[in-house]
Structure formats: C-alpha cells, structure tokens
C-alpha cells in the first residue's frame, strides 16, 4: 500500500480519487464517525428516555393528588353546642374543642342524606363520620372563632371528604377491597354515589394541596405541601446566597491565586473529599455545629440551609474550578499586558468566560440540595413539622419547618395509601419548583456561552 518513505511522498491513491467516492479507509473512518455520532445521540436518547420514563411514572402516579373530593352541605351552628353560656364571648367559644363540632357536621351530612331521600340503613348521624375528613371540625371551629356571630345560623360549608371516599372517586378504593376495611362500608359508598348524582359530593382542583400544611397520618385528604415549600424556599435562599459566592470565591482563590504548596494542596484535596462525604454525615455535622454548638433553633430552615450549603459547596467548587481551568491563558495574558491586576483580569475576563460552568455547577448543586433528605433527618426537619405557616421572613428562617423532599419522604412512608398519591404529587411540585429555580440559571448560562 503506502510507501511513505518514497521521495516526494506518494499518496496511496493518486489525485484521481474522487471526492464523492470514498476509498475503503475513508469509508471505515466515516462509518466510525457515524457510529460515534450515533453513540452520542444514543446517549442523549438514553438519558431522555429515562427522563421520560421517570416523568411519566411520576405524573401518572401523582397527578390525581391535585384533585380532591369535597362535600358541600349547609351546617347549622347550634348555639347550644357552641356557646353554652350564650354570651358570645370568644374566650368561652374557644373552649369548645373540635370534638364539639364533629356532631354538627355529621348531623348536617345526615340531614342532607335524608333530605335527598337517599335510602340508607344508617340511623345515626354518627355513622356519617366515615364520609367526613377529621379536618372539617377544625376548619369549622376556626371559622366560628373568627366570626362568632355565625353561631345560630346555617352556613354553607364545603368540607373535605374522607380519604376513603376520595379514593373511591379516584378508583383507588373499590367495593371489594373495602370488605376488609374497618373505616368505611359499602353503605357509605352507596351514599357517596347518590350524593354525587346531585353534586353534593364533587371533585375539584385542590389548591390546598399546593398551599396547605402537612396533616397527621389520619388525614391525608388535608395534607398539603405549601408550608414545606416555604421551608425549601428559605433553605434554598440560604444555600444560593452562601454556597454560590463562597464556592466561586474559594475556586477563584485555588485556581488563580493560590501558590502551589502543601497547604493549598491540602485545601484542594479537602474540597474534593467533601464531595464524597455522605450527606447524612453533613447532618451529623449540622447537628453538632449549628444546633448544639451555635445554639441555633432546631428544625429551622436556617440550619437546614447552612447544612446544605456545606454539602453543596464542593459541587460548585469542583465545577467552577474545572471551568476556570478551561479559560485559555492568552486571555489572562492579554489583560495583564494592558496593566490589569490579577484580580481585575480574573473578575473582568476569566470569570465571565467560566460562567457557564459555574452556573451548571450551581444548577446541579442546588438540585441536589433541593432533593436531599438525609441530612435533614438529623437536624430535625423530617417528621410531622410543617404544620404552621411562618409569620414573616425572620420566622421563615427560624421557626420549625420541613422541606419538600423530607415531606415527600415522610408521606411515602405513611401507611394510608392516600399518602402514596400525595407523595408523587409532591414530587411533581418539587420538580416544577426545581425548574422554576433553574430557568434563570439556564437563561443566564446561554447568554454567557461563547466559543473563541
């Protein structure tokens, strides 16, 4: 074939080779090119395929969480039960506990059943309990305490149906499966069917799932993600405003200023090692450092944010350093040559060019922080916590709260299958939250991208 040593350097195929007709070697190379390209496409395809599979299973499992079954009934607010002293004194009214409100609601539903002439074997209003969410009494009580004048009147009241009823309408609970169920009977389902006919029982969009607070095990129908979303929000604020600047600053120091010595090597190794520390160990650290040592409040998003900051830092540092490294030295030279200081050359030229990588690191780091549960376990943000809206910004950072992934994790563990659907629904919200969070970074990243 080739005689590479011959004078003048003969080519295997003279000038006559046509450009459009490839020789065998070119064919091979082109085939390998095609293969390579196909691998790339296949890799992206695989990634996207998994994404689609995951998203479909998330959406198909979770979309039902956004609909909820309600019962709409007029409730008579019996003064005898709610204000035994008859003086409308708020202090007295608030002495009546939720247990006092339950019969009123059960009566209301039972009357509705009788008014509509629905045939049923139940004779006692108390039997209606299975249809009604335990949250209804608390809701009604709040409303009465806020407006004691309502007592004695009949108010139209939209109450949550119990999770079993909701499950029945969503097809999760079937007539044969309830034969084993202690909480609800076939007779109840007959009533539900009848009430649904006339619209007393209906499904509608459940804003409370997005905005509401967590509920106890026995009230899945009431549980919402709103409060823990705020928890995540405040944590992410902490992470973003600490991890990003600190991470970028540390990277700049290490990549651009640090002298090459044992000490900076030590810092460098430490940072990459921190990336491999299991997140739960950061929880141990957070508990020791922030709660036990610094006496910050327990279960507070501030502490969670600080802990996650420490966890996210290595990710940001590693990606930032990688992209700083990729900026060609001639750019630095150019800046130094016109008399810019090192600091100026870094901040004016190198950093903007490294921005895409920094933003990528931020996106990935924040995504990781947003989805992390394990460290929160140890600083008290997992469990039954997200029950109250924080009042104001300071309490947003300081008062006990959970976070979205912790809430979802908690729901996924709960026994009532109604929580299973909510866990998936929660994941949908989490992903939307993540996307919203990332859009800014992605848009910025596209702005900064350039080739030179």
């Amino acid at each position, binding site marked *: 074939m080739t005689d590479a040593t011959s004078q003048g350097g003969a080519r295997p195929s003279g000038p006559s080779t046509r450009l459009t007709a490839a020789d065998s070697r070119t064919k091979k190379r082109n085939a390998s090119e095609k293969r390579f390209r196909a691998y790339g496409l296949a890799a*992206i395809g695989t990634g996207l395929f998994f994404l689609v599979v995951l998203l479909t*299973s998330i959406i198909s499992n979770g979309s039902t969480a956004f609909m909820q079954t309600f019962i709409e009934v007029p409730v008579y607010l019996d003064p005898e039960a709610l204000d035994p002293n008859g003086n409308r004194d708020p202090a007295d009214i608030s002495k009546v506990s939720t247990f006092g409100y339950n019969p009123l609601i059960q009566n209301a539903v039972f009357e509705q059943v009788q008014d509509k002439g629905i045939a049923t074997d139940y004779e006692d209003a108390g039997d209606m309990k299975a249809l009604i969410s335990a949250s209804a009494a608390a809701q009604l009580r709040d409303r009465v305490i806020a407006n004691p004048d309502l007592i004695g009147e009949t108010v139209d009241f939209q109450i949550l149906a119990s999770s079993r009823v909701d499950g029945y309408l969503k097809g999760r609970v079937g007539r044969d499966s309830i034969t084993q169920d202690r909480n609800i009977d076939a007779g109840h389902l007959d009533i539900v069917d009848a009430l649904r006919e006339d619209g007393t029982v209906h499904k509608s969009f459940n804003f409370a799932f997005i905005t509401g607070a967590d509920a106890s095990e026995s009230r899945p129908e009431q549980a919402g993600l709103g409060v823990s979303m705020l928890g995540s929000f405040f944590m992410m604020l902490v992470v973003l405003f600490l991890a990003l600047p600190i991470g970028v600053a*540390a990277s700049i120091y290490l990549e651009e200023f640090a002298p090459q010595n044992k000490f900076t090597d030590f810092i460098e*190794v430490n940072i990459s090692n921190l990336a491999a520390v299991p997140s739960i160990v950061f929880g141990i650290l957070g508990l020791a450092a922030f709660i036990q040592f610094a006496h910050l409040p327990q279960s507070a998003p501030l502490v969670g944010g600080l802990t996650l900051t420490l966890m996210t830092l290595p990710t940001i540092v*590693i990606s930032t350093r990688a992209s700083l490294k990729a900026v060609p030295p001639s750019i630095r030279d150019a800046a130094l040559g016109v008399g810019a200081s090192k600091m100026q050359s870094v901040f004016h030229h190198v950093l903007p060019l490294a921005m895409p990588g920094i933003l990528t690191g931020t996106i*990935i780091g924040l995504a990781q922080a947003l989805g992390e549960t394990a460290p929160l376990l140890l600083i008290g943000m997992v469990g039954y916590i997200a029950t109250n809206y924080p009042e104001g910004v300071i309490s947003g950072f300081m008062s006990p709260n959970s976070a979205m992934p912790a809430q979802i994790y908690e729901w996924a563990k709960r026994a009532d299958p109604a929580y299973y659907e909510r866990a998936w629904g929660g994941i949908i919200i989490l992903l939307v939250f993540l996307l919203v969070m990332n859009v800014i970074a992605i848009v910025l990243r596209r702005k900064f991208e350039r080739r030179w």
Partner: protein
Amino acid sequence: MPVLWLFLIVLALAAIGFIAGRMRVTSAGGKRPHSLPNYYGWNVAMKVMVPAYLALVVWLLAQPFLVNSQVVGMLGDRAVPEGSTIGLVMSDVRRVADGLDATVAQGLMTSEEANSIRTEFTDVRDRLGEAGVALGSNVSSEVLSAAQTYRTLNATGNFWMSTVVILLAVGGLAWGITQSHGSFRARNSVETGVRIILLSAAMLAILTTIGIVLSLVGNTWHFFQIYPASKFFGSFTWSPSFGGGSELGIWPLLWGTLYISIIALIVAVPIGLFAAVYLSEYAGPRMRAWAKPLLEVLAGIPTIVYGLFALLTVGPLLLSVFGRDGLGWMQAGTAVMTAGLVMGIMLIPFVSSLSDDIINSVPQSLRDGSYGLGATQSETIKQVILPAALPGIVGAVLLAASRAIGETMIVVFGAGAAARLSLNPFDAMTTVTAKIVSQLTGDADFASPEALVAFALGMTLFIITLGLNVFALYIVRKYREQYE
C-alpha cells in the same frame, strides 16, 4: 438600638465613605491618582464596614454570655428548683424578659411598669399571655427580678454596643478618607481585602473538614473502646444484632460501595460523556438549549424516586431477564446491578453538563487545526478535544464518583440490605453509606456498638476517600505536567 438599625447605619456610613473617598481623589486634581476612584471608595467603605461589623458580631456573640453569667451570679443556687438546672431557669428568665419586651412593644405595658412589677401584685403569666407569650408555669419572684435585671443589662449592653460600633465606623470613615489621596495604593488595599475574603472562602473547606472529623471522632473512639478495631477491619462478616454478639466487619460494606459505584460510573461516564460530546460538538443550538437542561432534571429528581424506580421498575425488569425465568443469575430484583444502573442514570447529568461546558470552552483554533489535517469530527473529539478538556472532565467524573459513594436512598431500595462479599453483580449487597444511615436511625441502644458503628463507618469512609483524593490529585498533577 435594634441590630438591624445598627447594621443599616454602618452600611449608610460605608456608602457615605464610598462617595467621600471617591470624591476626594477625583476632585483633588493634579497628578492622576494611583488607582481608579472607585477603589478609593471601596477602600473607605471597607474600612468602615470591616471593623464595625466585626465588632458587632463579636459583641453579639459575647454579650449574651456576659449578661448570662451576671444574671446567673445574681440568681445563685437558691433559685434553682430541685431537678432543674440553672440553664433552664435562665431560659425561663430569658422568656420572661422577651415576654416583657413583647408586651411593652405591643403597648400593653409601659416600660417603667415592666421594670417595676412584682409577682406579689401582678399575675405576670396572665399579663404576658395577653401579649401572646406563653409561659410553662407561673413566674417566681426570683425569675421576674432576674428577668428585669437581664433587661437592664441588655439595654446597657446594647447602648454600648451601638456606641462602639458607630465609633468604629466613624473612625474607619475618617481613617479611610484621610488615606484617600492620589498616592495611596487604594487598589492594592482593596485587592488585599478581596484576597483575604477569597482565602477565607477556601478555608471554609478546612473548617468543614475539621467539623466533620470532630463530630465523628468522639463516637468513633467510643466505638473502638467497646468493639475491637481488629474485628472491625479484620472481619468479613457484617451481622449486627440487638442481643449483642454482632459481627461488624467493614469489608462487605466497602466492597458493596465499590461495586455499586463502579457499575454506576460504568453507566454514567460513557453515557454522560457521549451526551456531552454530542451536545457540544454535533447538536444544533436548539437541541442543545433543550436537551441539556432536560438532562439536568435527572439530577434534580429526588433520590427516593430513583429508589422506587429501582425497586418497582428496573429490579423486576432485570429479574425477568437474569432471574429464574431467564438466565438464573439473579435471586431477587434488588441487586448491585439494579442500584448501580439506576444510580448511573442519576449521575448522567453530573458528567454530561459539566463536561459539555468544558468541551465547549476548548478554543476553536484547536478544532480548526485538526479539521485542517483531514480529521473527522470524531477523531478531532477523541484525540484533540477530549485530551484538552481532560482536567475538567476528570473533575466531573470525580464529582460523579463522589456522589455515587455518598448516595443512600437508591441503595436502600435498589440493592437490598444484605451485606455480603460476592462477585456476582446480581446479588444483593449494601454500602457503607446506607449502613451509616440505617444504624444511625435504627432502634439499637445509642450507646451500643450497633449504633456507634455508624460513626466509625463514616470516619473510615472519610479517610478512604481522602486517600483516594490524594491519589487522584497526584495522578492529575502528573498528567498535567506532561502537557501545557
């Protein structure tokens, strides 16, 4: 003066200083100043803020201690009821003091009243209750007077704090402004400041490391006192049990960690790299704009979802191929393979996105050089671009590997909880991290080796990964010296 106010005042002074410092050099005329006017501004602002805020922080940290010890001294032992501690009494004191503050703030009590009320004449619990401050019990007279002292001390402290901070700020302002003349090297001064900031940011990594070591070392020590290190490092069995007599050998867990991480990387690195290469070299801008963020969603899906995905989808799928009905290699859906595959999927964006950015910043002239020689695009990528981007790609892969080592949920759901040494990737195994979590959140006596082993595991893993990182640094260095 509330801290926020103080903070804002200093900030305002800094702003004034900035403008003044700037103005002084710009209006001076004559020779061109050493640095840009803004640097003089920043120099003054820095001199206003740094000492003042430092003092503020130190004061805020120290004052509670001092006030506390004063009040504690005043209370004496007498005031501490049986079974309580001075610490708890103090938190009662603080709560009452805060309560009085809140009541005064809401206008339910005058401040003289707050300082003079006595338990004998007023039901303090009730009065505070009106302001929405709940107390656990009735307030004793000692506590109330201690709370009143506490308030006065704090008020004095706050007064002096404000004075000192403002004085410092003003002093800094004066100092900074006198410095603001053309020959002063303001830029160098500011840059030194910035450099110190950068260095301290890097030092945070060391602080974190020290923190981790400190929070692990005590309990690890404890563990090795009740469980011999020789067995921990020497035994090949991991079988904790509540009744005692557990065997806690780390090897099966280390092996599981290694095995699962390797499989995860075998999945993630090629897919991620190929995806990155395609995105940065082949894909059109539209595709890139969409595919990259979409792949990044994979990194944002909570790991519990991956865990469930492993358990419910991937496990059964693998079982149908490699299980009894297929090749017969697999006992159950949960296995190293299941967890590794799913973890690999999660790690794809770690490799792809970062590498994409790095590859994208390889100068175009190198590509041109290669195309000009008649190289195909893939040859260019394989032989010119990837080597040039290698340091960054190594970083991305290390990051992914780190994530793989640290991951829990996927292992718990996907790999099974069996600790065993086996070569079969279709066997169930578990990892160090998963066991740290399970032993830490388990039911065992927290002073028993079964619970404390979590710390020893954490410590060991920490040291091992440290060693690996030192090794990686060494390799990267060696490689880097060859080129560039």
